[in-house]
C-alpha cells in the first residue's frame, strides 16, 4: 500500500511517502491510524490526536470509519489551510 503524508504529519513521521504491507486485520481508516501510531515515536507524535487527522483514499476525502479495501494510495494530513 502506498501511504503519503503532508504538512506536519509528514514532518513528524519523517518522510513524505512509503510502501507498507498492511496486516489483514486492518479494515478501516481508524484501524490503519491506530496501527501506524505503534510504528515508532515519529508516527506516535504525528497521530497522537487521531481525530484531527484527515484522510484521503485514492485522492478523495474519506471518514475514519471508511474501509480501506480497494485503496491504491492513502494520504494522511492535517486540516487544510489553503485559499
Amino acid at each position, binding site marked *: 500500500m502506498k501511504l503519503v503524508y503532508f504538512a506536519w504529519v509528514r514532518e513528524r513521521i519523517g518522510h513524505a511517502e512509503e510502501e507498507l504491507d498492511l496486516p489483514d486485520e486492518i479494515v478501516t481508516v481508524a484501524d490503519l491510524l491506530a496501527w501506524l501510531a505503534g510504528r515508532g515515536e515519529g508516527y506516535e507524535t504525528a497521530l497522537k490526536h487521531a481525530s484531527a487527522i484527515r484522510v484521503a483514499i485514492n*485522492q*478523495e*476525502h474519506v471518514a475514519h470509519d471508511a474501509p480501506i479495501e480497494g485503496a491504491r494510495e492513502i494520504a494522511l*494530513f492535517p486540516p*487544510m*489551510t*489553503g*485559499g
Partner: protein
Amino acid sequence: MSAPIDPAVRIQREDFDLAKESAALCAGRSDIGALVTFSGLCRDEAGTLAALELEYYPGMAEAEIRRIARQATERWPLNALTVIHRHGKIRPGENIVLVLAASRHRQAAFDAAAFIMDFLKTRAPFWKKEYRSDGSEGGWVEARDIDDAATRRWQGQPTPGR
C-alpha cells in the same frame, strides 16, 4: 437551464494576472452579465510574516477543486468559471488564489464564488507554513473553526440566484 459548463482549474507555482484571466474568460462572448473576481492574497500580519510556503497534494488538489467547481456549476447557472491556486513560497502582497465566476446575473456569480472559496478552504489539500520576518520558522497555520462554519452554511439550504 443549459448543461453545466466545464470549469477551468489550475494549480501553479507562478503568479497569475487578474486582468488577463478576466479578459481570457470573457473573450469572444457577450452572454455574461456578471463577472465576480475573487483573489486571496498573502498578508504580512502586521509586518511579522516574511513568507508563506504552500504545500499541496499533487493530483488531489486539482481533483478536489474540480469537484468543488463542478458542484458550483450544478448549483448555479454559470457561463464560465476559472479557479487558480498557487503553491510554493508566496510573499506578503502576492496572490494565492483566484476565482472567476461568470453568470447572466450577479447573484449567481457572487454566491458561486463564495461557495467555491468556502469549500476550497476546508477541502482542497493545501497547507500553509509561516516564515517570520525575524528569520524564525513560524510553523503551520492552524485551520479555523470559522471556515468550517462558512462551509456548513451552504448545506441544506435552497439555492439562491437561479
